[in-house]
C-alpha cells in the first residue's frame, strides 16, 4: 500500500472518518430539533419560581443531531465491529430480538406505579425470569431490584449484615481475595465492613491456608468470585464455604463469571449464600457504553428473609408486589429498599428473551463454547505469550507480561498495537495478582475464524515485540480517530464540561 508520508486534509477529516465538534460549538439560537405546538394560554401556577435567565443549551436541527451522533458512533469500537475480549466483562453478542421486545407496547410503555391489576403480565415476566435464575443457580430465592453487579453486591452484603444483625452479631470483617474485582472491597466498605485481603496461591486460587488463618468469629463473610478473575475455577470453594459457615459467616459469590458455568454448576450446591448475576454479562443485555446493567441476587434460605423490597409474590388472585414491610400480611425482616421502583425491567425482558431463545440446552452450550474458545486461545497463544497459570482455564485466558520481558514493550503498548490491528484489547493489569496481566475473554459468540485471525495477529505482534520493534509499539495506535491521550493532564487539570467562550452569556436575558 503506497501511503504517502503525510496526507493532510483541509477539513481534518480522513475519508469516512469525520471530525465532529461539540454540540455546544454547533448550536445556534433559533434552531430546534423538535416542533412543539404553542402551549394553551393559562395563568401560570409556578409560584413565582419561573426560571430567570437562559439555560444555555445549544439549538440543533434534527439533521445535525443525527449526523452528530452518527459520526460519534463511528469513532467507537463495539461487539458489532469485532472481537471485544475484555476479560471479566463477557462482551458477547447482543441479540436484536431482545431490543425489539423491550420496546413493545404493554412493556415499554408501562408505568412503574400502575395498579397491580394492570401489570399482571409484567409481574409474570419478572417471576419467570426469577424462576430461570433460581433454577440455574440452584438457589431458593432471588432479589430482582439491583441495578448492576456492584448494586447486587450491596444487596447481598446488606442481606448478610441484616442476617447477622438478626442474630444479634456484630461481625466487623469481610474477607476478599486479592484477585477480586474492585467493586467487592468497595461494597464491603460501603456496608460498613472492614476489608481483609486474602492472597492467591501459586495456582491462581484463593490460598486456603491464608483464608483459614484469617477466619474467626469476627468475620461476617467472604466475597469470592467463581470462576475467579484469573479465569480459574476455585476448586476449594466448597471447603471455603463449609469453613465459613462453620465460623458463622456467609459466602458472597460474585457471579460476574457465571457465563463459564451456566448449565453445569449450580452455585447453590457449592455453598453460596448469595450471588449477583450480571444480566449484562451472562445474559447478553447490551453494555451500552457503560450501562445500564441489572444485577439480580440469588439468596439462600438463610438470607432470603432479608431480601430487599419490593418483590413479586403469586397468590390466588394473581401476582402482586410486596412494596412495604408487612403489606403482604407477614412482618418480614427485609433490609429495605435499594432502588426506585421494581428494578431494571427493560433488562429483564431482554434477559428472559435470551434465556428462552437458548433454552436449557443452549445455555449449557453457551458455557461449553465460552470455555472452549478461551482454552483454544490459551493453547494457541501460548506459542508466544506466557500464560499466568497452568491447566485448563474457564471462560477467560490470563497471560502475564513475561513474554515482553526486555523488549521495551509493556502490556499497555501491546494493547495499543492490537487496536491498529482492528481489535479491542483485552482487560489489562487486572487481576492484580498477575504482573502486567492480559485477561482475554472471547465469549462463545466468537467464531473459530475470528479467533484464528486474532491469534495470528497477536502471535505476529509478540514476535515483533521480541524482534525489537518497540518503537512501533510505543507509537501505537496510529490508525485510530485519536492516538494516545494525555490522561495525566486530564486528571491534573480536569476539564469536565464545556464552557461558553464568553461567560457573560450565562447571565444574559
Amino acid at each position, binding site marked *: 500500500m503506497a501511503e504517502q508520508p503525510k496526507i493532510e486534509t483541509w477539513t481534518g477529516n480522513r475519508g469516512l472518518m469525520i471530525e465532529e465538534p461539540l454540540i455546544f460549538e454547533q448550536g445556534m439560537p433559533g434552531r*430546534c430539533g423538535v416542533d412543539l405546538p404553542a402551549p394553551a394560554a393559562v395563568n401560570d401556577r409556578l409560584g413565582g419560581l419561573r426560571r430567570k435567565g437562559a*439555560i444555555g443549551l445549544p439549538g440543533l436541527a434534527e439533521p445535525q443531531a443525527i449526523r452528530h451522533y452518527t459520526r460519534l458512533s463511528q469513532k467507537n469500537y463495539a*461487539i458489532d465491529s469485532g472481537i471485544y475480549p475484555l476479560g471479566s466483562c463477557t462482551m458477547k453478542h447482543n441479540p436484536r430480538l431482545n431490543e425489539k421486545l423491550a420496546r413493545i407496547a404493554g412493556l415499554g410503555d408501562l408505568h412503574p*406505579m400502575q*395498579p397491580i391489576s394492570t401489570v399482571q403480565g409484567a409481574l409474570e415476566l419478572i417471576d419467570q425470569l426469577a424462576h430461570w435464575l433460581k433454577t440455574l443457580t440452584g438457589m431458593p430465592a432471588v432479589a430482582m431490584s439491583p441495578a448492576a453487579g*456492584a448494586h447486587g453486591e450491596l444487596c447481598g452484603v446488606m442481606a448478610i449484615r441484616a442476617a447477622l444483625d438478626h442474630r444479634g452479631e456484630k461481625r466487623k470483617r469481610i474477607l476478599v481475595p486479592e484477585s477480586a474485582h474492585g467493586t467487592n472491597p468497595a461494597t464491603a466498605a460501603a456496608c460498613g465492613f472492614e476489608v481483609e485481603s486474602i492472597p492467591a496461591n501459586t495456582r491462581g486460587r484463593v490460598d486456603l491456608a491464608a483464608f483459614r488463618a484469617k477466619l474467626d468469629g469476627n468475620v461476617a463473610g467472604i466475597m469470592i468470585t467463581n470462576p475467579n478473575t484469573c479465569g480459574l475455577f476455585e476448586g476449594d470453594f466448597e471447603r471455603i464455604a463449609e469453613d465459613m459457615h462453620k465460623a458463622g459467616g456467609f459466602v458472597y459469590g460474585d457471579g460476574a463469571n457465571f457465563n463459564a458455568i451456566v448449565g453445569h454448576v449450580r452455585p447453590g*450446591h457449592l455453598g453460596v449464600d448469595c450471588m449477583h448475576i450480571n444480566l449484562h454479562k451472562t445474559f447478553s443485555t447490551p453494555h451500552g457504553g457503560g450501562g445500564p446493567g441489572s444485577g439480580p441476587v440469588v439468596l439462600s434460605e438463610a438470607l432470603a428473609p432479608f431480601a430487599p423490597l419490593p418483590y413479586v409474590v403469586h397468590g390466588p388472585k394473581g401476582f402482586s408486589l410486596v412494596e412495604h414491610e408487612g403489606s403482604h400480611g407477614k412482618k418480614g425482616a427485609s433490609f429495605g429498599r435499594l432502588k426506585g421502583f421494581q428494578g431494571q425491567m427493560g433488562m429483564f425482558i431482554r434477559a428472559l428473551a435470551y434465556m428462552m431463545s437458548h433454552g436449557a440446552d443452549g445455555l449449557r452450550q453457551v458455557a461449553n463454547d465460552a470455555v472452549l474458545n478461551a482454552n483454544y486461545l490459551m493453547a494457541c497463544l501460548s506459542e508466544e505469550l506466557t500464560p499466568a497459570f497452568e491447566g485448563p482455564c474457564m471462560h477467560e485466558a490470563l497471560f502475564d507480561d513475561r513474554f515482553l520481558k526486555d523488549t521495551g514493550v509493556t502490556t499497555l503498548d501491546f494493547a495499543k498495537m492490537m487496536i491498529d490491528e482492528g481489535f479491542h484489547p483485552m482487560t489489562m493489569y487486572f487481576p492484580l495478582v498477575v504482573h502486567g496481566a492480559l485477561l482475554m475473554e472471547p465469549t462463545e459468540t466468537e467464531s473459530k475464524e475470528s479467533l484464528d485471525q486474532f491469534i495470528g495477529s497477536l502471535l505476529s505482534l509478540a514476535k515483533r515485540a521480541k524482534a525489537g520493534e518497540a518503537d512501533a509499539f510505543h507509537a501505537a495506535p496510529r490508525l485510530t480517530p485519536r492516538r494516545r491521550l494525555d490522561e495525566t493532564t486530564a486528571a491534573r487539570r480536569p476539564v469536565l464540561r464545556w464552557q461558553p467562550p464568553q461567560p457573560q452569556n450565562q447571565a444574559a436575558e
Partner: protein
Amino acid sequence: MRYLPLTDTDRRAMLAKIGVPSVDSLYRDVPEVAWQGGPIHLPAHQGELEVERAIGAMAAKNLGTSSVPSFLGAGAYRHHVPAAVDHLIQRGEFLTSYTPYQPEVTQGTLQYLFEFQTQVCLITGMEVANASMYDGGTATAEAVMMANRVTRRHRAVISGNLHPHYREICETHARFLEFKLALGDPDPSGSEDLVGLIDSETSCVVVQNPDFFGHLRDHTKLAEACHKAGALLIVAVTEPVSLGLVQPPGAMGADIVTAEGQPIGNALTYGGPYLGLFATREKYMRQMPGRLVGETTDVDGKRGWVLTLSTREQHIRREKATSNICTNSGLCSLGFTIHLTLLGEAGLTRLAEINHANAVRLAERLSAIPGCRIATDAFFNEFTLVLPKPAADVVEKLVQKKILGGVPVSRLHPKQPELANLLLVAASECTTDADMDALVGALKEVL
C-alpha cells in the same frame, strides 16, 4: 442455535489443538457434587417467533400507558421521545460497546458523555456533573453519603416530601453505614420547614423540587441555613423537564443536585432502566461518586476525551473508593443527551411550558368536580388531588373504565391513613383534551 457460531467440526478441531478429548475435561476443577450432568428443568431453545409470541402474550396482559389516558407520575413520567433518539441509541457502536476504557476507539462514547455532563450542569445550574448513576433514588443516597464525606458529619435531614423510594434508599444505606437520619413527615400542604432540624452534626438536608406532592418551592433560604450550619443542601428532581421552566436548584444555592433523568429521552418500561443525574460544585469534584469524562489532547495535539479522576473509583481505590458503582446508566444517558440536543434551549422551554399549561388546565377542571380539591398551589406538571374517598379505590374504578387516573399517595405512604384520599395526577404534552374529558367524566361517575 442462532447465537453460537462454533460448528461441531470447529469444536473437534479446537479440542484437538487444546489436547483434551472433550469440553467436560476442561471442567476438571469442578467437584463432582456441584456438577450438573443431568437435565435442567427448564424449556429447550426456541426460535424468534416463539419467543416473540410468549413475551408478546405477557405484554398483552398489561394495560400500557400509550393505549389509554394516563395521568401517572410520582417519579416516572411519560413524554413523547423523538424517533431519532431510539434510532440512534440502537446503533451498534453505541449499544454494544463497553465502558470507554480504550479512549482511542471510544471517542464517540466519551464525547457524548462530556456533552451530557455539560447539559446536566446547565439545566441544574451546577458546575460539574458525572457520567450517570443508576437512578434518581440511588443518586440521592450517594449524594447523602458524599455530603457525609465532605462535611465529615453523619446526620442527614430528609424532607418528608422527598419521594418515599428515595427516602427508603437513604434509610437502607444509613442503617448499614450507621449514619443518622432526621426524617420529616409527609406534608401535602407543602409548608414543611426543615430549618429547625439542622444542627451542628448535620451533613446535609435533602429536599425535592417539585416535591413528591408536586409543590414547587424556593429553597434559597434553606440553602442559606444549611451553609450557615456547615451542611450541604441536596436537591432531588424527579421531573427534569421542569428545569426548562423553573428556577434550577443551582440558582437556589444547592450544593448537590440529583435527578431522575428518565423523563428526558427514556421510556417508562415499568420502572427501569432509568438514569441518575448527579451534579455538584467544582470544589467537591473529587468527592463525587461515579465516572467522569474529561477533556485532553492526544500525542498529535488533537482534542479528545478520557475517563478521568479514576482514583476516586473502585477499580483503582477499592475499599477507599467514593462509591462501589461500576456499570452505570450509559445508554440511558445517551438517550437523555440526544433528546436534550434535539430540544435545545427553545424546545426544552416550550416543552416545559406545554406540560405546565396542560397541568394547570387539568387542575382547574378537576377542582371543579364536587368533592374534589387541589392541594398544590404552585406546581409544574403534577399536583395532588384531594378526593372524597380513598384514592386507591377510585383508581381501581378508573381502571375499569380504561383510565390510568394517577398514583394514590397510599401506594407509597401506606401507613399514613390521613393521606389515603390523596391522588397524584400528572399531565404532559401527551395529555389531550380528550384524555382530560375522559378523566373528568369518569371521576364524576365513580365519586
